[in-house]
């Protein structure tokens, strides 16, 4: 057959497709090391990176920065990395914003990742914005969910705003790499697959022009923060007469400490002499609006409930299933608070 008619055919030039990420490929995970081991949050980030990489068909790189961190490379591979870059340098032994920023910026300029994920730990929160500023790119911080816009090949970061009552989802369409920090505890840790294989590569970074300016004088400082007043506390554990005695009240205090909150009491607890009047919740006491309110052995009559109706999440522990608070609680636990709280403390690992 004669196909010569095809020779005259010229493809019409369509609009030029501009790939903002031209030349930028692969997903990087900055690994955080504490006490010679990978942090749990790093593994969570690794799981997310693997999922995203499989969707857009790229490799996952683990990035290890520090001194003597190379042995951890294989572990990163077992958790999902295809390749691990190790910047091992005596100058990187302790965290310094300047040197860590310089080391990462060097690597990014040279190898051009399209996405860089960092755990939102104390270190990550300190480093990521500085790095983003240095690389002149956008940072989606404190993400609790990641997604992809496949039509534009963009990372979408979702993070809570206004105290977690709402989420914003943002993208970084022009600048590369797209950097996101991931809030610890929101993503699952992937399975460790010791049969995965990959390279652990030593890389050189140029640190000659920068110098860390911080001197860490005490890595285990004791801090005595003023405890949050009852009305501002995020977590409140309220003790009621159902705890029976001072020993039971002690359990409520322990639970409050384990949950990082403060202890309060019902009018009944005040009558028993366990708490002072300033800690009473309810009508005539404080009206509070914590994120989490745990009522232990509190029946929750109307006068009590008016004081806590703005609480975002209520857990009630009470032996009486028909107590008023049990109808109003998000989670109603039927049982003797004096038995349930010790078991909860154990489950919390306190």
């Amino acid at each position, binding site marked *: 057959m004669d196909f010569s008619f095809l020779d005259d055919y010229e493809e019409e030039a369509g609009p030029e497709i501009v790939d903002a990420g031209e030349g930028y490929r692969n997903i990087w995970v900055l690994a955080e090391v504490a006490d010679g081991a990978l942090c*749990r949050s790093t593994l969570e980030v690794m799981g997310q990176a693997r999922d995203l990489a499989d969707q857009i068909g790229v490799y996952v790189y683990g990035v290890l920065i520090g001194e003597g961190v190379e042995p951890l490379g294989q572990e990163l591979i077992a958790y999902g990395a295809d390749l691990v870059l190790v910047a091992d340098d005596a100058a990187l032994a302790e965290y310094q*914003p*300047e040197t860590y920023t310089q080391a990462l910026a060097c690597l990014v300029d040279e190898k051009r990742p399209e996405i860089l994920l960092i755990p939102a730990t*104390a270190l990550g*929160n*300190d*480093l*990521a*914005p*500085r790095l*983003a*500023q*240095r690389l002149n*790119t*956008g*940072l989606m911080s*404190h993400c*609790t969910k990641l997604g992809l816009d496949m039509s534009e090949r963009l990372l979408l970061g*979702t*993070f809570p*705003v*206004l105290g977690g*009552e*709402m989420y914003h*989802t*943002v*993208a*970084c*369409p022009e*600048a590369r790499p797209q950097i996101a920090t991931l809030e*610890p*505890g*929101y993503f699952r840790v992937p399975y460790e697959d010791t049969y995965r294989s990959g390279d652990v590569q030593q890389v050189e970074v140029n640190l000659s022009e920068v110098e860390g*300016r*911080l*001197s*860490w004088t005490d890595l*285990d*400082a004791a*801090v005595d*923060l003023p405890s*949050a007043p009852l009305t501002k506390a995020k977590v409140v554990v309220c003790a009621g007469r159902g705890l029976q005695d001072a020993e039971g009240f002690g359990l409520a205090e322990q639970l409050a400490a384990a*949950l990082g909150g403060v202890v309060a009491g019902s009018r009944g607890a005040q009558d028993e002499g366990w708490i002072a009047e300033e800690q009473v919740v309810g009508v005539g006491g404080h009206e509070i609006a914590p*994120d*989490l309110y745990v009522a232990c052995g509190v029946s929750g009559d109307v006068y009590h409930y008016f004081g806590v109706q703005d609480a*975002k*999440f209520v857990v009630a522990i009470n032996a009486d299933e028909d107590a008023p608070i*049990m*109808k109003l*609680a*998000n*989670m*109603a*636990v039927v049982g*003797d608070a004096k038995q*349930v*709280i010790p078991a*909860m403390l154990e*489950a*919390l690992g306190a």
Partner: protein
Amino acid sequence: MRIIVPIKQILDPDGLTFRRDKERMFINREEYIIGPGSKAAVEAALRLKGEGDEGSGEPGRTVVALSMGEARADDALREALAMGCDAAYLLSDSAFAYADLSVTTRVLAEAVARLGGADLIVTGRESGDTGAGQIGPRLAQALGYAQVTDVCALVAGEDGIEATRRWGEGYATVKAPLPAVVTVAPEAFEPRLPHGARIMSAYREWDVPVWDADALELGEAALAPLLTKRRESFPPPLEVGEVFRGDPETVAEDVVAALRQQKIIGQAGG
């Protein structure tokens, strides 16, 4: 020593209600306040200046408040003046309306440079609304200053600062030379109330100059944001009335697991 405090005015969250089932936010009372992080930053700076009960200050320290925002942020700056700041500047321009954090950093850095640089910049760990926590470190990089974030105790000498910050699971003490950027934890610096006489002066006598994009010599290119907002969404409504029964051990484990799964508590506990 010049201490500069960038502050952010936010919509008072107490005036908002959220209906998760309707996926809407309702503004019941539209009132603007200084965000809790920014207010703590003002307090921390004033303590360094040595006013109030808990000062470790020395003479010759001045505190300057800066705010980028709409014209109404003037109120926030006057409140900062009433608390004890020595001067305040409002950075306001319609061209700043679409600013993201990189643009805000550029505007603030430009303003700091115009003020002749700072010895110390104190700001909140994160804002009370969007809570990104980026301005401090970004500003430090833009100006080439040292940085310490999430600080809960702060002392400043002539040549440097000593700060206690949250680090890993606990706290660490760190020294940094000046100039430096410090971001403070709001829970550690309970803000003072403005002084009555200063409130009168702040509104009647003192000036809050306004600097716009031209004054800061920022062109259109410098004000182009890098991030774009795609969506707003709401968490699913909380379920009411989930009942747990059984022997104490199993029940306790189930409850803790359910609380963790719903992100009511973190993995570590609180």
